Structure formats: C-alpha cells, structure tokens
C-alpha cells in the first residue's frame, strides 16, 4: 500500500506512471453520493433481513453488521440506482426524488 496521496495539485514528478493505483480499495476516498438524483429510503419496520439487497448493490452502500443484519444506507456512496428497491420482496426500500422534501 502506497503512502502517496494524489490530488489535482500533485506535480507530474510525484504521480504514479500511467496513473497506476497502488492503494487497494481507495474508492472509499471519493464520496460519490452527490451523483444521486433518486434516493432509497430504508423502512426498517418492513425489513425481514432476508439479505437480498446488499449483494446487488453495485457500490458498497448498504452496510452489514457482524450479525449479518443490514443497517441504514450509506449516502456518501449510494448513487440511487434503485436495484436494491427492485430486488426487495417486502417493500422495505422506497425510492424518493432527491431534494423534494
């Protein structure tokens, strides 16, 4: 794991050749949740903890605890694709327009 942190002020002499990324999992440094225009809302009273939603999340925006129970969305990374809402058999994920309320 490299210690180099590259940003838009980094000079060429300190950037990695070809833009190679030596920090595995560094996507966590880039909060992409503001791409979202539609927002999933977790309705915990309807959730049966069936475990179908979090494997289909294309990012890592549905945190799962050690007891394998999901918790509320991580909106820092959720882009509002709605796949989780489609896959939920119990209507425990509602999709709402961002910025309406």
């Amino acid at each position, binding site marked *: *794991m490299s210690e180099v942190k*590259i*940003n*838009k002020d*980094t*000079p*060429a002499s300190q*950037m990695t*050749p*070809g*833009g*190679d*990324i*030596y920090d*595995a999992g560094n996507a966590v440094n880039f909060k992409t949740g503001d791409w979202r225009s539609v927002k999933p809302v977790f309705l915990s009273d309807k959730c049966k903890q069936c475990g179908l939603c979090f494997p289909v999340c294309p990012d890592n925006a549905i945190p799962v605890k050690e007891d394998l129970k999901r918790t509320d969305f991580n909106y820092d990374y959720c882009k509002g694709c709605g796949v989780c809402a489609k896959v939920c058999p119990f209507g425990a994920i509602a999709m709402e327009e961002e910025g309406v309320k």
Partner: protein
Amino acid sequence: MGIRERLSGNEASAIAMKQINPDVVAAFPITPSTEIPQYFSTFVSNGDVDTEFVAVESEHSAMSACIGAEAAGGRAMTATSANGLSLMWEMIYVASSLRLPIVMSLVNRAVSGPLNIHNDHSDAMGIRDSGWIMLFSENNQEAYDNLIMAHRIAEHKDVRLPLAVCQDGFITSHSIENIELIEDEKVKEFVGTYKPEHYLLNRKEPIAIGPLDLQSYLFEHKYQQAEAMRAAKKVIADVSADFEKLTGRKYSFFEEYRLDDAEIAIVCMNSTAGTTKVVVDELREQGVKAGLLKVRVFRPFPAEEIAKALSHVKAVAVLDKSDSLNAAGGALFEDVTSGMYVNNVHVPTVNYVYGIGGRDTTAKDIHGVYSDLQEIVKSGKADNPYRYFGLRK
C-alpha cells in the same frame, strides 16, 4: 565469438525472440511479418521456449493480450505489419500510456489503400507520435541486434515504454543474408529477467491499472511519457555500449557513413542505407565527397545530434519512404529540418519521397539524388524542396 548463420530478417527476428524466451507472444499473421509468429509457434511446439503463444483472432486482440500479459507482470512480444498495425491502433496508445514495455517486431509495409503488400514506411510513420520507442534496421543483423537490445531499453525504470523494431518488408524480412548470432546463454544473461516493480499478479500488492484520467491528470501523465522518451536516449546509449562490449558491434542513435568530411549527404532509414553506402563508395572513388546519415533511433528523435552531424555539409537530401500527404514534406524530413532549424544549422535541405508500395530503389536512383545535391551546392539554390524519385509524374 558468435555463431555464423545465414537467415532472412524474419528468421533472425524469430530466433531473437526464441533466445529472449518471453512469457507471452500474441500475434496474428499478416504479410510480410507472418513468418515471425509462424517460426515462433514452431519453437513453442518443439518445446524450445517456455512462452505462452496466443493465436488471437485479430491484431487488436494481439496487442490487447500483450497489454494484459505485461500488466500482469510478464514479458510480452508481438509482430505485425501495415494493416495489422492499423488494427492495433487503439491499443498501441493504451500500451504506451500504461507504460508497458511490450516489444514488437514491425516489418514495414505499405498501409492500404489501394491494397499493396510491399515495403514502405507508412505503417511505422502512423505510430510515430504514439509514445513507442522506434528502432530502424538496415539488414537482418540489425533487426536481430535491435531486438536483443529492446527489452533492456524498454523495461528500464526510467523508460517503461513499448518498443518497435522496424525492418523493411520483403527487402530485409525475406532476403537471406549472412548473420552473426549470439550464443543462447549470452543473450539470456544480456537480456536478464523482467522484474517489474508493480504488477497485477502480485498478491502482496493489489493495484489498479488504467484508471479514468480526466482534466486534472491526463496532461501530467502525458508529460511523464514525454519525459520517459527523453530519458530513453541515455538508456539506449548505455544499452548499446553494453551490447558493443558483448558483440563488438557498435550502435549509436544513427550511423555516420563517410560523413565526417562529406560535402553532400543523404539521410535515410532501413535497407535504403545499404544501397546508399554502395553509391557513396562509388562517388568517393570519383572524388565526390558524399556521405550518409542512417537513422537508427527514430523515436526518441535525436534532433540535436543529427543537426550537429550535418552542420558541416553543404547540401542534404532526406529520403522518406512514406508520403505524409501534407504538402510540406515527409515525416523524417520534417524532423530533420526542424532539428536543424532549432539548433541553428542552416544547410540547404531537400526531401525525396521514394519507394512507395515497394517501388524498387536502385543505385541509379541514389546517384540521381547525389547529382541533384551537387547541383544545389554549385548553384547555391534548392528550388522545390518537396521532390520524388522513382515516380512517373
């Protein structure tokens, strides 16, 4: 003390690849380079090499497979010509921008169209700005020697750029000439083992290669490539010096043939240099001070060194075996004259486009160029710098 052999340029290149024994060769047959993967696949079948030979379905895939192999941490090679190189186009830039030191044997042929399978340099000139190191070879010996030196140059930590070794299709690739090969174990020792610092199959360091590179980053990454190309000059000189220690064969950025006291000079690349040397010798016997500058290292372009080497002559002809179709001269002419201008060398210089589509280049043609140069020296005028020879106008 070397092994005396007689081989075509393609055979010599395939044998160089056998001695290098790369991890992966991915190639698709295309005239006139077809024999290289053909011979090489025989070496694979006979167990002479450890290489994984990937018989791909296109040249785009050939270059893609080489990129994958190099990114994984292996040493990859390929061979192609003309339209095959055209089909690689997208991946040619990916290879150099990802800084993967792939080595290609490029057997020069006219790029279609109309369809022609014979030699000129239009394929090579197409990739001259792609960030590949490009070495040109007068004959089978140089095609072989340049390949043996290629990995040391391309893989150097200050360089990390892909490299193409050019030779003239059919003229060199299919002509059998004497050659001195290096013993297998000496090649192995000279080329060495490839030890990339970062690579995909390293379990201890998971990395990502080829990320999205937008406005804030691409400029700097292109600058890094440009810096690597500048740094390649020293590495090429160092590796060539080591090669001379091994074989006694001296290689520079370019060869100066009877140039030091020459009054008129031709600049050219690949097999035409052989024809030109014969003519230079004939002219010297007649007391004409003719010389030759044969470019070996075309990328990086040794602009300053070439300008210096030509600074004392009275007239220069640059021969381009590819027409840039730009109303302003061929690629080599542009590079040579730009280098001369920037380095304040002002010698009357003319361009000849020649040999297109395999048109024969004879000693008589080259005599004609030197006669024109003598005329320029006498009159002090170089009318029409954009010329042709061997063409029916």
